């Protein structure tokens, strides 16, 4: 585990009597993109603050590249994008970014190149007060790119952005990861995380309730896979009867099956060709998985 970019070991943090984090352990490898999910108050913000050294854990340790998060060496190679950050509206994008560059011992000139990279070339000498929400987020992203960060923390980076900007954000995040940075991002937007993160951690009431690639979480949850079978009027009834499906409309049938049963069930249904015209395989979405893991814990909580 010594090659982890970020290592969180048995960390607890309480505010007054409320446990914000309860014995959380987690590691992120260089180049890995990890998504942090959880309801409001699940402990995401606390975890992010701890990783950034903005607050200290009551118990446990946090190491970034083997060092404490507050050390100057680590702050030199860590980058952070706070949720809905608003820079000073009297400054231009270039001036604001130049200041951040200088704080990281980079030449103020590098601001221009970074702003071009995030698509703010045309607006860089305009005041930030005239920027749209999307442009402000891009400026925030530009300061993340300063230097060569080894660890990147993004708090709800795409909230309130249009689909194109979101796509752009994830492209930049992947580039950062490809260059070897460990990326920790929190998000509410579950569907957009599916293909863009390597691992997902779900927090619930200060505890990690799931930790793994989406594929593993799906398998662990054992949620059924849905087959949408498009048949014709005569065969639809028979398929529905034989495989315990339900008629969705006149011609199509929905069949639920276990993940392990998927291939067998598909070949069975495919035997009806040409009566079967099309089959859609619908995997449980991240939302389904998320709901499963979140509920699991609250059920246990109810039983206690």
């Amino acid at each position, binding site marked *: 585990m010594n090659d982890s970019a970020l290592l969180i070991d048995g960390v607890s943090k309480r505010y007054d009597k409320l446990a914000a984090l309860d014995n959380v352990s987690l590691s992120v490898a260089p180049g890995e993109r990890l998504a942090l999910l959880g309801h409001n108050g699940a402990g995401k913000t606390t975890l992010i603050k701890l990783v950034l050294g903005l607050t200290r854990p009551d118990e446990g340790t946090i190491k970034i590249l083997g060092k404490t998060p507050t050390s100057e060496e680590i*702050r030199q190679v*860590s980058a952070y994008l*706070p949720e809905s950050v608003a*820079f*000073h509206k009297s*400054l231009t994008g270039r001036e604001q970014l130049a200041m951040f560059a*200088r*704080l990281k*011992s980079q030449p103020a000139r590098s601001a221009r190149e970074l702003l071009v990279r995030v698509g703010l070339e045309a607006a860089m000498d305009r005041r930030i007060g005239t920027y749209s929400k999307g442009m402000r987020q891009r400026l925030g992203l530009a300061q993340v790119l300063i230097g060569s960060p080894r660890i990147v923390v993004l708090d709800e980076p795409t909230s309130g952005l249009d689909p194109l900007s979101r796509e752009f954000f994830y492209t930049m995040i992947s580039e950062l990861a490809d260059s070897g940075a460990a990326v920790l991002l929190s998000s509410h937007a579950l569907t957009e995380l599916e293909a863009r993160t390597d691992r997902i951690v779900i927090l619930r009431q200060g505890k990690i309730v799931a930790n793994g690639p989406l594929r593993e979480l799906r398998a662990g949850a054992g949620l059924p896979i849905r087959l949408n079978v498009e048949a014709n009027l005569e065969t639809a009834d028979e398929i529905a009867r034989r495989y315990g499906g339900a008629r969705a409309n006149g011609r199509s049938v929905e069949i639920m099956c276990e993940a392990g049963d998927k291939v067998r069930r598909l070949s069975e249904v495919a035997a009806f060709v040409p009566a079967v015209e099309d089959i859609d395989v619908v995997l449980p979405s991240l939302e389904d998985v998320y709901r499963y893991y979140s509920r699991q814990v609250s059920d246990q909580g109810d039983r206690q």
Partner: protein
Amino acid sequence: MISRIAAITATEMRIAIRNRWIVTASALMTGFGLILAFAGSAPSGMLGVDRLTVTVTSLSTLSVYLVPLIALLLSFDAFAGETDRGTLPLLVTYPVERWEILIGKFGAQLVVLALALIIGFGVTAAAVWATDGVSAESLAHLVRLVWTAILLGAGFLAVGNFVSVSVRQPGTAASLAVAVWVIAVVMFDVVLLGAVVADDGGMFTKDIFPWLLVGSPTDAFRLFNVAAIESSVMADGFASTTETFAIPMLAPLVSLVLWPSTILALTALALRRLEP
């Protein structure tokens, strides 16, 4: 260290220029300076006190009210504004020490204030010189006024930053700053005056009152300037203020230096403890 402080200071200076702080503050000081120099009572011509010396005395009274106000206005938003915009947590994750951020911001505020004082009082002196002429002695009074006013302002800049670190909303910081001004600049003197009147020349007036005066930055500032002017014309029969109170001439100056340095140190401590 220096380059990081300079980066913060440069950014803050830019904001001050954009927000017309330098222009506004300088215009304010110049306007009041000229009014006091020419629209106020003309020098009586007695005892060789020239117009600039009289003006400096008036300006020192004006500065007692105006300089703390401008200083608090320049500084109350420094950290509360960053908290409000969500940039403070970001800034402190950068490889810059928190006290460096404080010094960077304070430095910019001090430059703005000093510029306003130098421009404002400088223009006033130039105008007096053009009309009446000035003596080397009265120029020395003016120079003393400027640098002590900068020290007085530094004290209230430090207080403004302390207030700004202590609260999370710029609005709260603004009302606290106004409260500080009313209490430290207006109420303190009124209460002291009341106490002296009630005491009627007793122990309070003789032994405690002078030190309370010296302890307040505004009174220390006024005392230092007026005493210096008076001692220079004492040969003509005036009694020195410091002589009356039996406190060393250096005491008000020490007070003027201690205020900004102490409050600034406290602010740095508060900032270190802050969890943004």
